[in-house]
């Protein structure tokens, strides 16, 4: 086809194009450092914040597959486990190593980053192996295969000496910190938002909306689905790696099917397709049990109810999900982002998905 010459308009912006890529980092890193220092001293707050951050990473990354691409993966804890065990194992092996040209703290963080990337890469590789055969097919195959994958990983770990069998891995150096966790939170949110607004994200939305039409318009639907899945698995692996470096011990019990469902509930609650929705829902659902614990504790119900919060958590999630499906099936924000649903007087982004 010969279309007339097109004039390409420059998008007006306050930020020079060259800076647009790194500006968020320039702002985020000092902020996170401040945030990190303000926390030192409170062990429980540190722990809780780290868990919140890990859950945000998990929910935001799962949203790329279940929300943006419209697939249904229910084995995210499996990819988290791969990341946790590989990163944890790497750190254990490198425990005695120190990079002599760096101060000890910096050397530790470099090794930590290496371990995290190893965990993320292993999870991404698993994502590729799981995704390629199951995403070729339409429908519910992905759900079944990811469910199976999660269980296989758990059983495998349980029977592998190197990973400590049912006892788990302990003694992993505690390199992690809320600052580090939230640095990755920042990265995954940035990546998810940029993906959503890019031509690749647009193809993922198209697959979600109508796979047949997307394919007819030249979108390699299998390729895109697999890439989205690998991408999502990578961040699940990172989340696992972070987790392994701030809990005293990781064992197969941390990565059960229930854990996977928790993440699915977060994504559904936030709104399938909404990155900020997944973010908010992850915070809410992580703090909910703690809130209940302190509430029951304050009520003084002989402590037993407060201790049983972990057992009644899943039924409560289930109830929450049912109420949500009946009252607001699209989740908190639907496919929109938080700034699209804020009050009118706040500045908004343009309409549409991206």
């Amino acid at each position, binding site marked *: *086809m*010969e*279309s*007339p010459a*097109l*004039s*390409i*308009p*420059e*998008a007006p912006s306050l930020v020079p*194009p*060259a800076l*647009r*890529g790194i500006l968020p980092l320039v702002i985020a890193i000092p902020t996170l450092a401040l945030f990190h220092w303000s926390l030192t001293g409170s062990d429980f707050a540190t722990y809780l914040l780290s868990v919140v951050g890990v859950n945000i990473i998990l929910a935001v990354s799962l949203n790329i597959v279940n929300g943006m691409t419209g697939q249904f993966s229910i084995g995210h804890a499996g990819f988290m486990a791969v990341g946790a065990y590989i990163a944890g194992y790497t750190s254990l092996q490198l425990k005695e190593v120190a990079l002599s040209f760096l101060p000890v703290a910096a050397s530790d963080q470099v090794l930590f980053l290496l371990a995290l990337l190893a965990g993320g890469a292993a999870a991404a590789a698993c994502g590729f192996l799981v995704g390629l055969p199951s995403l070729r097919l339409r429908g519910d195959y992905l759900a079944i295969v990811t469910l199976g994958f999660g269980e296989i990983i758990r059983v495998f770990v349980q029977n592998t000496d190197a990973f400590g069998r049912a006892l788990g891995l302990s003694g992993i150096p505690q390199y992690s910190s809320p600052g580090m966790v939230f640095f990755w939170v920042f990265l995954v949110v*940035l*990546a998810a938002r*940029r*993906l959503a607004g*890019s*031509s*690749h*994200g*647009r*193809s993922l*939305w*198209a697959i979600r*909306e*109508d796979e*047949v*039409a*997307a*394919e*007819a*318009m*030249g*979108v*390699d*639907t299998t*390729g895109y689905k697999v*890439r989205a899945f690998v*991408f999502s698995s990578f961040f699940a692996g990172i989340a696992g790696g972070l987790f392994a470096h701030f809990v005293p011990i990781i064992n197969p019990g941390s990565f059960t099917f229930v854990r996977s469902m928790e993440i699915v509930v977060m994504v559904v609650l936030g709104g399938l397709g909404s990155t900020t929705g997944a973010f908010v829902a992850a915070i809410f659902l992580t703090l909910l049990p703690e809130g209940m614990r302190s509430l029951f504790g304050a009520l003084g119900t002989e402590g037993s109810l407060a201790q049983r919060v972990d057992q009644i958590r899943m039924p409560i999630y289930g109830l929450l999900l049912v109420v949500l499906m009946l009252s607001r099936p699209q989740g908190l924000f639907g*496919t929109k982002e938080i700034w699209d649903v804020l009050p009118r007087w706040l500045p908004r982004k*343009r*309409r*549409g*998905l*991206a």
Partner: protein
Amino acid sequence: MSANAQPVAPVAPATKSAALLRTDGVSIQFGGLKALTDFRLSIQQGDLQGLIGPNGAGKSTAFNVLTGVYQPSQGEVFVSGTKVNGRKPHQINLLGVARTFQNIRLFRALTALDNVKVACRAQTALHQSRMGVGAKLANAAHNYADWWKALLLTPSFQREERRLTAQAEHLLEVMGLSHRRDEEARNLPYGEQRRLEIARALGSQPRVLLLDEPAAGMNTREKADLMVLIRKLRDDFKLGVLVIEHDMKLVMGICEQITVLDHGETIARGAPAEVRSDRKVIEAYLGDSYLESHGGAA
């Protein structure tokens, strides 16, 4: 009324320009149902052909075979001389065949602009067809690297994004949809949704455009306008066009060659005047009772 096979006019003989889209005796069955039997077709650049027939004749099925949605049980499909049996729909699209759908299949939650941009973008991506392992790996590496460009907002990525936007805006303008640019596709009126589907198909820069009942649900006035527009698209974009249309009068008005299907069989092919007076076509469309009461036609 014997339906005895009168030989159907042969497909246009081999001409100077190779056919953009050609089928060779394509048949497809669903269980026991022969949805399409020995279907032959040849589309060149500049053609504006019609495909008509009663409901359930196999017209949409023919489109699905041409675009790789269904695999033919027999026969071959060629795009610009390349045999495409067994290829996926997106690969066939990349070879230059785009289509619209009878029951509109827009990306409903995406804006009009984004609908078109999806198709524009796909053309610039690399795809795996039949390649060696090495080429496949290089291809995959390229695709993953492409995602990183989007995440890092590299200048080349932004330039590409602006180019896609401009291209899509141009197509919206051609289809008279500029005022709907930022509206979600599902909120467009019916007629505009049909036009948006055409704009999206054009986004994939096709050489052959297949339109499945593009005027369905429109009023007479809109239909006439659309037909004029389709002819203009063929000329401006140098396309070969194949239109399925239920309204016989409409097709007769603009198409230069018409193929008539009934129960999957090609019962007539030729210029509008020939087809209109063909006894079997009248039978298929109006039933035997019409012929009896009017004492035959032709």
